[in-house]
């Protein structure tokens, strides 16, 4: 019995091994083409098994996919491997299939103003060294940028020129000039960019007072001036009879077009329920308002009559008619 069971076990183990091998090895007429850099396997075998299987070919397709994936993984196991932080990693070769461009070819940009000028004049860029010898610090410094060689804003001693005002701050003057140059450069860069993308820069083209401007131009200039403050015109005073500008509030945000339809429906049904439940209450309040108004009118009429009849009587009966209070407010229809 034991012998038999041992034999059975051995046979079973053999069978398992054979099955595993069968799973791992796949027979194909044509060998697959592999591009391991892209993890790509191309199967050129004609799909004879699939033609006559009919519409539901799930099992055949799945078997085919399994076979091809098995072959690909067999190839991957043959690559040189290495260990990276307790994981076995295969080093993929360079991809051999060339993938097409993801984005379209960039269109040529228009030349910047300097490039146009240089082309016109035939100016070629001179080759310059990256570093320049700086006498003051005694080291090689870069030509421009951080810690550059000749930075006139960083000088500790500036001689006041003969024709300058002695009270002027020369250091501040140099820093101001630097800021202006930077701003001018930035403006030119943005202008070049706008020209490249065919956009318009916001400019003060028609805003300078000439004396010959029309009403619309003046109005536009006034609007721009109003909005060009740090708070974008929120706290600018207006003339006594000037109207507030339209559309100066925050832009309204609407729900997206295909929001959650179920949520929309739910909120609408909820609104309907609330509306239906409130309906009778509103009628009552309206009715009470009306009633009170009528009563007030009657009282007023009565008072008038009494004052007309005779001033000898005790005069108008005091402020009993003003019944404004909780009831009224409860009855008023809230927006």
């Amino acid at each position, binding site marked *: 019995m034991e012998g038999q069971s041992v034999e059975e076990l051995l046979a079973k183990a053999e069978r398992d091994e054979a099955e595993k091998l069968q799973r791992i090895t796949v027979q194909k007429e044509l060998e697959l083409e592999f591009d391991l850099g892209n993890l790509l396997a191309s199967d050129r075998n004609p799909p004879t098994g699939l033609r006559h299987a009919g519409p539901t070919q799930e099992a055949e397709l799945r078997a085919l996919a399994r076979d091809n994936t098995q072959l690909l993984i067999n190839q991957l196991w043959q690559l040189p491997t290495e260990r990276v932080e307790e994981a076995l990693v295969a080093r993929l070769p360079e991809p051999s299939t060339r993938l097409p461009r993801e984005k379209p070819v960039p269109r040529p940009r228009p030349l910047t103003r300097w490039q146009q000028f240089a082309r016109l004049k035939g100016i070629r860029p001179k080759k310059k060294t990256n570093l320049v010898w700086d006498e003051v610090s005694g080291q090689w410094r870069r030509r421009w940028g951080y810690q550059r060689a000749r930075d006139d804003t960083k000088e500790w001693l500036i001689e006041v020129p003969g024709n300058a005002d002695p009270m002027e701050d020369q250091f501040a003057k140099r820093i101001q000039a630097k800021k202006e140059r930077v701003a001018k450069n930035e403006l030119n860069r943005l202008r070049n960019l706008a020209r490249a993308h065919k956009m318009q820069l916001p400019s003060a083209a028609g805003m300078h007072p000439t004396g010959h401007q029309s009403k619309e131009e003046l109005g536009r200039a006034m609007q721009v001036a109003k909005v060009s403050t740090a708070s974008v015109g929120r706290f600018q005073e207006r003339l006594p009879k000037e109207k507030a500008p339209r559309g100066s509030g925050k832009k309204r945000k*609407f*729900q*997206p*077009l*295909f*929001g959650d*339809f179920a949520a*929309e*429906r739910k909120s*609408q*049904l909820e*609104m*309907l329920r609330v*509306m*239906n439940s409130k309906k009778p209450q509103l009628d009552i309040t309206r009715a009470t308002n009306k009633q009170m108004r009528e009563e007030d009118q009657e009282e007023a009429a009565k008072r008038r009559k009494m004052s007309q009849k005779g001033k000898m009587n005790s005069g108008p009966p005091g402020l009993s008619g003003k019944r404004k209070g909780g009831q009224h407010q409860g009855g008023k229809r809230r927006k």
Partner: protein
Amino acid sequence: MRPLTEEETRVMFEKIAKYIGENLQLLVDRPDGTYCFRLHKDRVYYVSEKILKLAANISGDKLVSLGTCFGKFTKTHKFRLHITALDYLAPYAKYKVWIKPGAEQSFLYGNHVLKSGLGRITENTSQYQGVVVYSMADVPLSPLNLPRHIKEGEKLLLHHQEAN
């Protein structure tokens, strides 16, 4: 094109509920598909989700209409119901008024209907109630508001353009 805001939906529902009452929730929540209200150039359209998805591909300035136009919002944000909504109001109408054939033509051309031109009317119709007018052949003609109490006299029903 955008969905309606809370305020706009409330105004619109109040208007429609005058004619169909609680049956409005049957319009909102339909068993045979998702229908929704969308606003395009101040007009409210009742459209199924499928058609809405198709219409979203058309640019706003080229889009004329989608689904059924229920009405529009005026400049002061009041909702005005249009005759194109009749197909959806008529089946759910709570109060109906039938007018005789003789008065029908006159009504359709914009005249008032006298009490003698009235064929049938649902019971318990109160004053200033929103009703749907039918012809004697049960063809819905128009929604409108009753102007005054039925018992009183002569000039009774306003024609549909004045109803809103």
